[in-house]
């Protein structure tokens, strides 16, 4: 594993998908939490796609979504999933592999 220092990847190396089911307070909170974290750690190098399953129910199958909100890190690979409203910043960073587990 690389050390805590963040490598300098090309722009939009981070492709994130946030699955929600309706614009619920929890969904809005999750999105806000995510944006804050990304701005702080991945500024300029990330793209967030929001998928509302109430509008596109067929998409739930592809990414194996069960819980909402679910954040899927599609890039960089491997795919990772984080469920919940993303309020625990430390765990989000670990889940996205922005911060190494050992460093937590």
């Amino acid at each position, binding site marked *: 594993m690389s050390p805590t220092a963040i490598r300098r990847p090309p722009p939009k190396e981070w492709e994130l998908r946030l699955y929600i089911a309706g614009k619920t307070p*929890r969904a809005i909170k999750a999105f806000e939490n995510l944006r804050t974290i990304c701005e702080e750690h991945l500024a300029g190098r990330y793209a967030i796609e929001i998928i509302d399953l109430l509008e596109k*129910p067929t998409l739930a199958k592809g990414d*194996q979504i*069960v819980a909402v909100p679910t954040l899927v890190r599609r890039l960089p690979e491997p795919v990772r999933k984080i469920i919940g409203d993303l*309020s625990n910043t430390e765990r989000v960073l670990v889940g996205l592999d922005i911060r190494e587990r050992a460093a937590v």
Partner: protein
Amino acid sequence: MKIRRTRSGTAIGIRKCPTGIRGLDEITKGGLPQGRPTLVCGSAGSGKTLLAMEFIVRGAREFNEPGVFMSFEETTDELADNVASLGFNLPVLIARKRLALDYVRIERSEIEETGEYDLEGLFVRLAQAIDSVGAKRVALDTVEALFAGLPNEAILRAELRRLFRWLKQRGVTAVITAEQGRNQNLTRHGLEEYVSDCVIFLDHRVINQIATRRLRIIKYRGSVHGTNEYPTMIDERGMSVLPISSLGLAYRVSTGRVSTGVATLDEMFGGKGYYRGSSVLISGTAGTGKTSFAAAFADAACRRGERCLFLALEEAPAQIVRNMASIGLKLRPWVQGGRLRFHAVRSTLYGLEQHLVAIHKHVSEFRPHCVVIDPITNLTTVGDPTEITSMMLRVIDFLKQHGVTAVFTSLTTGGHAEQFSEVGISSLMDTWLLLRQSESGGDRTRLLYILKSRGMAHSSRIREFWLTDKGIRIDDGARAGVRK
């Protein structure tokens, strides 16, 4: 509270959703509670997935009720392959929009949990699947896998409660499978707390090295149901549950007669032979000629142009045919002509349930007028006496329902009283013919008498008989035998 019933025994108020699984609809008096979830629990390998799948497939094929099968353990390809051997063609049903499959995969190691969530994703998927085919039936197999995948049990429990409520609101009939728990808990995660309208328990155990399956309805709210453990079989046509009989003792009885195959014996039964549709027991010690009498009966049936099923549990069919030819009974042409069908199997090869199912299957396919089981006593090697009795009861009931005349031979072991019937089934038999031997003056003579024959006048004398190359010859009474 007194439950009013319709003629079929269905409680008014509860609508039933037929499963199409042989026997299950009989013991549930019509099927699962419609529009409600049913819990199916049991140990690994007890057939939970199969029951759930058969419920969905038969719903789609036979009852015009499309279904959704949501699998948490097997992928859709695996599922399709596994049930293909049962004649369930899932890809075709999917293509015709009669079935939707969804494989829900949750890998705990891939999931990080941060903050609050719910399982709306699962609801969305289920709703989407239901809407895509207009499903009336849903199977969740097994939703408990979520416990392994999601760390927060409190959320999961609240969500499962919501899920089962939601299924009810959608009005779908659902089957939810769950693994059997330890310490006599029905399920590992206590799902019975949430799904309590109907609970079915499947059991799979090994007794005397022979696997037996059982099914029991533990609970069925608002409905009468059979409470026994029912033998269950899984074969190439799916699952079947074998009830003693939903019709009880209400079968039609015939006053018609059929020949025993031996003219003199017919005479002993008031000149006409056995009652059609009755059960006949021929018992005796080894070498008294039980199989010969059974074969004579089979031969007579074929002569009348009827079909006869001969279940040979001891001898190979070829051997029976050869041996019977030596006493003038030519069975081979009947076999070749399709009137006589042999089903030969070592009794120990199967469990009792499988024997029972084999009999069911042959009778439904071949639709014989007459059945011979030779000898039923061989079955005692594969079950304890109470099981044998309950199985024989099922066989006799089943054959009577179909109006089949049945002849059973029974081997009496030396030392027992002649009337002692090992299988304990004599009371189930309408007619009992007893064969015995006696030794006197350096000769062994064969004797027979009718121990009982319900509802007809019959001879009560002990007669001597001979197995000759022209058939069974019974002393016509001129040389009177020993009086009973």
